[in-house]
Each structure stands twice: as C-alpha cells, then as structure tokens.
C-alpha cells in the first residue's frame, strides 16, 4: 500500500520494452540523488557509487518486469571510512532511495552500535538483537563500528550470538530490511576477514575518503549558513588555517571536527557580543569573526 511501486503507466508497458525514463520519473529517483549532490560537500566517489547502485536497482526492477532473472537483490552494504566522513548522513539518504525504488517498505533508518545489540548476561542478547531487528523491519539498520560485535579475544563474548542472528535475518528476510555495516576501513577489513559470513552477504562496499581542506571549508560555510551564521572574510582566512592545523592533530574527525569548531566559535561570538556594546546589529549577531576562531586551542600549539 504505502510502497511506491513502479506506477501504472509502467506496468501497462509492453512486456518486451521498458521505458527507463518513465520508470525514473515514476519512482522520482532523481530527486534524492540530486539532493545528495546538493546537500553533501565533496564525496565524489561515494556519490558515483550511489548513482551506480540506484541505476542497478532501477534496472533490476525493469528486468523483473520483463521476466528476466530476478529475485530480491542483495542490498546489504558496508560503508567504510574515518569518522565524520558522512557515513550516517549517506545511510539516511540511502534509506530514502531504497524506499522510492520499493526495496524497503517504510524507508526509516535505525542507527545502532554494539551496546544496542549485545547483552550483559546469558539470554540477554537474542531478545535485544531481535528487538532492534523488528524496529528496523521495513527500513535500514545501520550498525556503526560493526567490528565491535566481534571480540576474538573473548571466546564467550555474546557478540557472536548477535552476529548469528543478524546473518540469519540478512539472508532470510532480505525483502524486509537492509543492513549497512559501518566503521574504519582497516578494522572493517579485518572484521570481514574473520567473519566471511558477513563478507558474502554484503553486496556493495562504499569507501568514504577523508575531506580535503577546501571541502572542509565549504562544509564549515554550509553548516554556518544552515543555522543563519556566516564567516567574516577574516574569519574565513583563519578557518583555512584552522583546518590545516586541525587535520594534523590526532582524533581529527573530518566534518564532525568542523561542526564542533563552529559550535565553539558560536559560544565565543556570544561572549564577545555580551562583553561589548549594549546593542548588537543583526549583522553582528550573525557574523563569526576571526577572533572567535583564533581563540581555539588548535592555535596554541
């Protein structure tokens, strides 16, 4: 009912010819991809992979209609990359795309980590994992830092139980949900190496590269604009400097670090305004100045 399957015009087409343009229009698959292009800075290889996957799924729909080998395609995915490279955001968009193409019925995203799936004592894990799976049915289950499910150092770890339940559902209920496993590139690689069951059930691997400095600056400006702030020309210059320094530091987490830096800059801006004149112009209220960024600890070293 609520599944927006291919529209009637498409159904009525001849069994030998499929109008792919019409199918694209009917599923309105273009708009989430366009949104992805517009809203997300950089990530060119990721966007390219998503366009490929969307095209593949669209063609799978078309093949199904003309009676070519079908069966629900495996859609489970792995998103690898460093923190703050947009994995969760893209997962959310992916859920929307899969929903428009009719591969998931509801299109919501349930985002979890090990603690949501694995219990503390015997008999605790299976109900927890099943509960999460039931909530994710009809949508996408996003497991961040999925390798924590597997703790080879501890034989009696309950994570294994969660893994087995996940694998079973990923295999048997492919039409009910899509699982996306996410985490650092290298750790995911070793996780897949020791859990071949997962590797074989993942159809699409997408790697999220780190943002370069100019992309991070665009992100900073975009984030500021989204909450109706802007960087003054001087602040922009300081931000460029900030980004270069921050990238060298440990625990750099791409867009997330930029978001945090902006949040702190907003606090400093507020302090500066309160300490200054009794009145503030609209202009002043929305402008981040160089000093608001310059005060960061990043510049102390």
């Amino acid at each position, binding site marked *: 009912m609520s599944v927006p399957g291919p529209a009637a015009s498409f159904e009525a087409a001849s069994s030998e010819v499929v109008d792919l343009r019409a199918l694209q229009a009917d599923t309105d698959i273009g708009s989430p991809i366009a949104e992805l292009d517009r809203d997300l800075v950089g990530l060119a290889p990721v966007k390219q992979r998503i366009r490929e996957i969307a095209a593949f799924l669209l063609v799978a729909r078309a093949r199904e209609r003309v009676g070519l080998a079908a069966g629900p395609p495996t859609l489970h995915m792995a998103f690898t990359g460093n923190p703050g490279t947009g994995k969760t955001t893209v997962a959310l968009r992916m859920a929307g795309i899969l929903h428009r193409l009719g591969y998931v019925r509801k299109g919501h995203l349930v985002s979890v980590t090990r603690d949501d799936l694995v219990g503390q004592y015997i008999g605790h894990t299976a109900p927890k994992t099943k509960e999460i799976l039931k909530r994710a049915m*009809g949508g996408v289950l996003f497991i961040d830092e999925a390798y924590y499910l597997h703790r080879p150092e501890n034989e009696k770890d309950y994570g294994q139980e969660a893994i087995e339940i996940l694998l079973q559902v990923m295999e048997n209920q492919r039409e009910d949900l899509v699982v996306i496993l996410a985490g650092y590139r290298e750790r995911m690689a070793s996780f897949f190496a020791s859990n071949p069951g997962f590797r074989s059930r993942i159809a699409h691997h997408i790697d999220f590269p780190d943002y370069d400095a100019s992309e991070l600056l665009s992100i900073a400006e975009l984030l500021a604009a989204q909450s109706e702030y802007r960087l003054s020309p001087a602040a922009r210059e300081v931000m460029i400097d900030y980004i270069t320094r921050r990238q060298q530091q440990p625990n750099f987490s791409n867009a997330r670090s930029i978001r945090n830096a902006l949040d702190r800059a907003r606090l400093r801006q507020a302090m500066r305004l309160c300490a200054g004149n009794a009145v503030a112009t609209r202009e002043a209220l929305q402008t981040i100045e160089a000093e608001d960024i310059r005060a960061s600890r990043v510049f102390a070293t």
Partner: protein
Amino acid sequence: MHVTQGTFSFLPDLTDRQISDQIEYCLRQEWAVSVEFTDDVHPRNTYWEMWGIPMFDLRDAAGVMAEVRACREANPNVYVRVTAFDSTRGWETVRLSFLVQRPANEPGFRLDRLEAEGRTIRYSVHPYAADQPAGRRYKPEQANTAPGDRR
C-alpha cells in the same frame, strides 16, 4: 464447533498476508502489538500466555509476523491471537484483537446448570478441552492443517 472470539472470527481464517495488513493498520495507529496463545479458550479467560511483551516502536509488520510464525511453531494446534494496545489518554486499552491460529478440532463448551430456588438456574460454561491438564488439551499431531492460505 467454531469459537468466534476475536474481531474477524466470522470470516474465513485470515491468510498471513491479511494478518500482516491488519498489523500494518495497528502500527499506523501507533499501537503496540503483541502475540498471545492459550489452550484454555473459556470466554472469561482474559490472560492468555504472552509470547513476549507487546512490541513497541515498530514501523513494519514483518517483525510481528516473525513472532506470529515463531509462536505458532512453538505452540501448534492451540489458539494464537494478535492484540494491539493503544496508550492514548481516554483509551489505554486493547483496540484490536484477532485469532491467527486455532486448533484443527475445537470440541467446544458444555453448559452446566445448577437449579436453585425460584426457578433460578446457575450457569457455568465448561470447555471440554479443560478436562485435560494444561499443555495436553489439543494434541499437536492432530493439527496443523494450515488454516487458509499462508502466503
């Protein structure tokens, strides 16, 4: 005999597809859905056994259907129902409840009459199956001629 408890018991046994559609309806109303089973179908037996607690915050019927199937598998040839709970103020009660499995053979109920003074009669409804201890009331091997088309 055909027990007619539950919302849709005058219709042919629901298919899994139909059951799933009703669960989808419940989820759209933001009701919590649970699965319950019993081998004591007395009309006043309110508390059937719970197959887990009611499922909250689900978006799709597939999760409930998995529990329905698991409950049937573990409890063949007894009564299984799906019950939906509404937590809205002014309701806070069951809003829909329907059977999703019934035994192949339903022996029904005996009506006992105890004659009292002034032509008064004290009535008691007694399920024939209740003569057996719990768990032995409906023989698992008799069933499951799959009710309806379980797609």
